[in-house]
């Protein structure tokens, strides 16, 4: 690749999603281009510390894993002059690049990539790799649209998870026990047992607990994140669950385990160990698909329940991977109802039922695995972006 340096900008709106994606992108881009200088500018280092514990959230500039991390709230003209600007600037999730950086960047030939949020909607191809004409003569800007098709920008494939995939499958019990031991649990086999992870926005789990309570298996639910934890505890209280400890509840055949915050790669690997995952937003949604395990997606809530449009677009695309029309219909109904809430509440406001999801678990597993294969082999964002950067460079030379 011709470009020698890349600056990635991330403005944190809420939670861990945006910074998680930006860090993952920085990490994979660096691995793919070891000679390229990669810097990640973040508007708040504290959420990043949760994902990458080695981060010192009070330090303005620091380097880990070959990536330079910069607290972008400290950027003034003096610091920008000292740091300079890279050949390529990336607006992660469509964020704004700080003004001081833009002023510096326009003094040299600079390529700007607006790396947008992921979407399964068809219109994204109208924006993907399209120019955005700017008034500054030396700045060239393009939109880059992540997605699930060959025509889109793809998704970030985590190379560490890919490398550990076989071991996660072969030594599943060992890996699961490494998490279960914190709750004093050790398993010798996984017969008649289901493992599920939950990481959602605030919502009710009343119908979920009621429906999985009818399954003739022991179910281990691993709960991630504050919103899932608080919501689940509310639902457990309503169902009169037994409190074993602050982090362990029991309800009939269900063991509910409240998990600590896990580093990014460990969480990604965890999703490959379970039988199903309930995930939210963008990044954990993509990881759930890549894990190849059945999943339920809690889309980021938008005004006027617009997130349903996003869910419908995903379902239209996901339908291509199902062999069974009835299983897909059942799954669609569940996903649409699951995303019917207009706002986050810790009470049950939606009417989804989960019986069919668990009955169809193998069919959904097949569809997710097929999609995972397709994405891993055809939709690697870093590879596709590299190809695009090379193409731009060729066009500029010509």
């Amino acid at each position, binding site marked *: 690749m011709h470009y020698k340096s890349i600056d990635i900008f991330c403005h944190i709106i809420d939670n861990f999603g945006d910074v998680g994606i930006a860090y993952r992108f920085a990490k994979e881009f660096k691995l793919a281009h070891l000679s390229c200088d990669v810097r990640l500018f973040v508007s708040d280092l504290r959420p990043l510390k949760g994902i990458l514990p080695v981060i010192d959230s009070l330090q303005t500039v620091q380097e880990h894993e070959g990536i330079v991390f910069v607290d972008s709230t400290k950027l003034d003209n003096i610091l920008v002059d000292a740091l300079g600007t890279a050949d390529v600037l990336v607006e992660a999730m469509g964020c704004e690049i700080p003004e001081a950086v833009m002023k510096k960047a326009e003094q040299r030939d600079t390529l700007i990539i607006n790396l947008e*949020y992921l979407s399964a909607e068809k219109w994204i191809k*109208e924006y993907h790799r*399209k120019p*955005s004409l700017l008034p500054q003569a030396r700045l060239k800007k393009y*939109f880059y649209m992540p997605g699930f098709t060959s025509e889109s920008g793809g998704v970030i494939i985590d190379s560490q998870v890919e490398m550990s995939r076989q071991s996660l499958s072969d030594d599943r019990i060992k890996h699961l026990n490494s998490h279960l031991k914190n709750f004093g649990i050790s398993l010798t086999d996984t017969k008649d047992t289901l493992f599920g992870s939950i990481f959602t926005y605030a919502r009710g789990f009343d119908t979920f607990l009621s429906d999985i309570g009818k399954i003739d298996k022991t179910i281990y639910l691993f709960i991630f994140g504050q919103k899932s934890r608080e919501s689940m505890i509310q639902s457990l209280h309503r169902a009169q669950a037994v409190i074993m400890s602050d982090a362990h509840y029991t309800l009939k055949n269900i063991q509910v385990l409240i998990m600590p915050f896990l580093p990014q790669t460990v969480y990604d690997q965890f999703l490959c160990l379970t039988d199903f995952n309930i995930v939210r937003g963008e990044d954990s949604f993509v990881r759930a698909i890549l894990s190849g395990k059945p999943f339920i997606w809690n889309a980021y809530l938008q005004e006027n329940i617009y997130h349903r449009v996003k869910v419908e677009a995903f379902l239209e695309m996901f339908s291509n991977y199902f062999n069974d029309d009835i299983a897909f219909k059942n799954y669609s109904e569940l996903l649409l109802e699951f995303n019917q809430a207009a706002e986050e509440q810790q009470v049950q406001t939606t009417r989804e039922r989960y019986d069919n999801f668990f009955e169809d678990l193998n069919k959904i597993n097949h569809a997710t695995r097929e999609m995972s294969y397709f994405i891993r082999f055809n939709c690697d964002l870093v590879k596709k972006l590299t190809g695009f950067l090379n193409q731009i460079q060729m066009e500029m030379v010509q």
Partner: protein
Amino acid sequence: MKEAQELRAGNTVKIANDLFLVQKMVYNKGARNASMVKLKLKNLDTGASAESVYKAADKFNDIILERRPMQYLYAGNDQYTFMDQETFEQIDLNKDDLGDTLNYLKEQMVIEVVRHEGKAVGVELPVNVELKIDYTEPAVKGDTSGKVLKNAKLETGFEIQVPLYCTTGELIRIDTRTGEFVARA
């Protein structure tokens, strides 16, 4: 300054030292309540048109060019003829010059023709226009909220979404910025 999402066909913007006429604007809602727009822009000096994409909140220097009220007379061979309301001078514009405004343009309509260096380069519609519904499925009794929508083909051939209570032949008011139904006329 105008945001990209406020631009519409007929607007003129300045990017660097060039003037561009907006010929077409498409709005798409992205994730996390963020949106983006795709513009078809015509460089008024070179005459070249190109697509450019923006975040919905990207800012533009909008330029007010000279404009005159003119009446749309007729179309033929991809040329659209307008007549100055005062001088009766007739000018022709082509399909690309008119862009999205064709969706709402009907004969006898008086609109603003945008001129640059004495030459007509595009048109700008009023915010609201009144058009007849050429065809829509029969009205449904019961839903009067206006929240449930159905397709309707307008007399210009353009399709929009209208409330279930609207009927074929009815005159309705449309917001030309968004292409949305406003009210019965």
